[in-house]
């Protein structure tokens, strides 16, 4: 399993975590390249559909990160998001998705070091979960094998 490189979809708020990733980059803090970032205007924009779509299409993990509560660029976006996260987190855990596959964090644009640590932590934990085989759409099992 050690050579398994997970693919993680990351949803970052434009105003904070995205900036933190940028700062980590220009500060030459190295972090694993296992995630692809989708930039959101705010974590309040995160529709649970996005998380499901990522898993459905075979993501091994999803990482959502935004501004610390109280620091939202739009005043209250992440307060609303937080309630949705509680539901999404609980629902997916309840139906048996490993909790480490879906991670949430608050990282401000100044916290490059926290970003680096969190990125490493997320990747490490998803790696430990192994490839996502149970909570994804099987690659077009209908017919594709017959023509390949």
């Amino acid at each position, binding site marked *: 399993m050690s050579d398994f490189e997970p693919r993680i979809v990351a949803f970052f708020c434009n105003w904070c975590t995205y900036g933190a990733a940028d700062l980590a980059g220009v500060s030459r803090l190295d972090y694993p390249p296992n995630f692809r970032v989708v930039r959101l205007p705010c974590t309040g924009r995160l529709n649970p559909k996005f998380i499901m779509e990522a898993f459905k299409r075979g993501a091994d993990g999803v990482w959502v990160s935004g501004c610390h509560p109280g620091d939202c660029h739009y005043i209250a976006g992440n307060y609303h998001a937080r309630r949705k996260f509680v539901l999404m987190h609980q629902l997916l855990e309840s139906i048996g998705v490993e909790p480490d596959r879906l991670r949430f964090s608050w990282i401000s644009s100044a916290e490059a070091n926290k970003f680096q640590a969190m990125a490493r932590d997320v990747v490490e934990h998803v790696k430990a979960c192994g490839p996502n085989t149970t909570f994804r*759409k099987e*690659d077009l099992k*209908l*017919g*594709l094998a017959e*023509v390949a």
Partner: protein
Amino acid sequence: MSEYIVKENALVDFFKSLASGRRLLTPQGLGDKCKLEETPPDKVNLDFSNTHMSPKSLLFPQTEALMAFHNDASKPQAFVYQSLGDKGEPLAVFGIRPCDAKGLSIANKVFQNDRFTDNYWKGKIDQAVLVGLACDNPSPQCFCAAMGGSPFGEAGLDVLAFRQGKDLGLKPLTPKGEELVKASGAQTANLADAIKGLEAEAVKSQGVPPDYKGIDNADLMALFNDPHWLATAENCLNCGVCTFFCPTCHCFDIQDETSEKGGVRMRNWDTCMSWLFTVHGTGHNPRPSKTERVRQRFMHKLKYIPLKQDGVRGCTGCGRCVAMCPVNIDIRSVALKMTQTAASQA
């Protein structure tokens, strides 16, 4: 063609002969779990009411892949759709009820007619031999007689089987059926009168069938424009239960799905109860509310299909939609309203 009989002690041998060289499917399970399943010849059950869902998915699965392509440029035919062909295999289906077989025969005219042939359907039906089992004790929600069928109806079947005491009577209806029955070693017997007697009794148990003939003769636009549709549809939820359970509903939606490895073109059951069924690319929807959608379903069953299929109604009276509808919209009541419209126009 004469009739045949299989004695009680020869039933297992009969089913063995059905199963030789084919998969034998019969209704297994109780209640909402009753469905057509592969059955060992000694496990065939004759005491069932009917399968929970209609048998149409044998020939027309809810999801069916039609063609596929792969993305691997190192292999031939990359990015080119290739037909997946039909998934037909030799099948013997025993225990289809006459209403459901009639349903298949109606859908058959949609998938195979003088204008075109659907190879996916044809491949399956050509290799299947359908042995029906007549209903000697129709369920309370059955009304095949009212829809021009019979508990002993023959449409769509290769062989009609019926219970003759503890024995099984057989009436071959097609050359394919005749061949099957002969190969099974069943003995010939003259059972024409017995069938008539049993059929009369079964029909009687459904009571006096209501007369919907008025609909057949009525003006289409008069039926279409009748104000009763507003009330008829008022409690409809617009779910797809009636259409998914209907043995004659045959509408589908073609979808492409792709991944990084390739793509598949598939067809899936669709339902006219859905808003999405008719919405155009422009956003315009010719059936904008449930009233139009409910009207479409009943007009299709009771008027459009009879117009296209020589008077045969698109409802076979299996009663599934009546039993399954969450709000009890009963096609018999709707047919009655349409009959009244027809009478008031006449």
